[in-house]
């Protein structure tokens, strides 16, 4: 044992100069490694099993619970949202129907007003046209008479200027024939 350890130490000392055998097979330091390994494993085991693993397990369980709750809440909210959307759609449809009804009513009203106004305007226009025709006829009458008078007078003057004499009756007849023709 002692010679082995000194040999190993000798190996370690002149390691730079010479390559030793496999250090893994140097059984003199196995006891040392095994001792420290067991210490290490026991320390890690206690740290993990006493502190780390329960803590992480708690955190994970808590998070799982929170997530489950949140998902339930989210489902509820989603149902509510669907409900609200349905209500909204229904309100929208109602409003649209109402609007259509109002539009139709307004259209009918306007049409009726328009019809009445058109009829009234038509009647007025007809009356006005008749009146105007009558006035035109009167004016035309009047104009014809005036022409006749002026023509008769002018004719009488002309006849007198020419030194003739004509009775009024002949002149009136001649004028009447002319104007008519």
């Amino acid at each position, binding site marked *: 044992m002692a010679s082995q350890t000194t040999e190993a130490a000798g190996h370690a000392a002149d390691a730079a100069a010479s*390559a*030793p*055998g*496999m250090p893994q*097979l140097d059984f003199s330091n196995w006891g040392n490694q095994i001792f420290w390994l067991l210490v290490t494993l026991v320390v890690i085991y206690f740290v993990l099993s006493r502190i780390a693993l329960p803590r992480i397990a708690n955190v994970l369980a808590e998070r799982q619970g929170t997530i489950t709750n949140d998902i339930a809440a989210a489902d509820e909210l989603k149902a509510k949202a669907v409900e609200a959307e349905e209500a909204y759609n229904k309100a929208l449809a109602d409003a649209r129907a109402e609007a259509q009804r109002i539009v139709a009513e307004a259209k009918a009203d306007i049409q009726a007003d328009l019809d009445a106004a058109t009829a009234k305007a038509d009647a007025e226009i007809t009356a006005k046209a008749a009146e105007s025709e009558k006035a035109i006829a009167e004016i035309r009458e009047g104009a014809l008479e005036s022409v006749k008078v002026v023509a008769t007078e002018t004719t009488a003057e002309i006849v007198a200027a020419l030194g003739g004499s004509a009775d009024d009756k002949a002149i009136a007849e001649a004028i009447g024939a002319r104007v008519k023709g």
Partner: protein
Amino acid sequence: MEGQLAHIGAGLAAIGSGAAAIGVGNVAGNYLAGALRNPSAAASQTATLFIGIAFAEALGIFSFLVALLLMFAV
């Protein structure tokens, strides 16, 4: 003379590493072929894949160990 023979032996033992490489390649290649045929089952078999690779590789490590022993411990 004896040392040189040991070195030759170490070189021969290193062939075992190549054999292990063939084995590992076989495992991984067959896994890949299977995984491409049925990708949905691939994830559940990765553990088996690693176990298979580990077993195949362990034997290559044995031959590597023999080589090391011949090089340094004989």
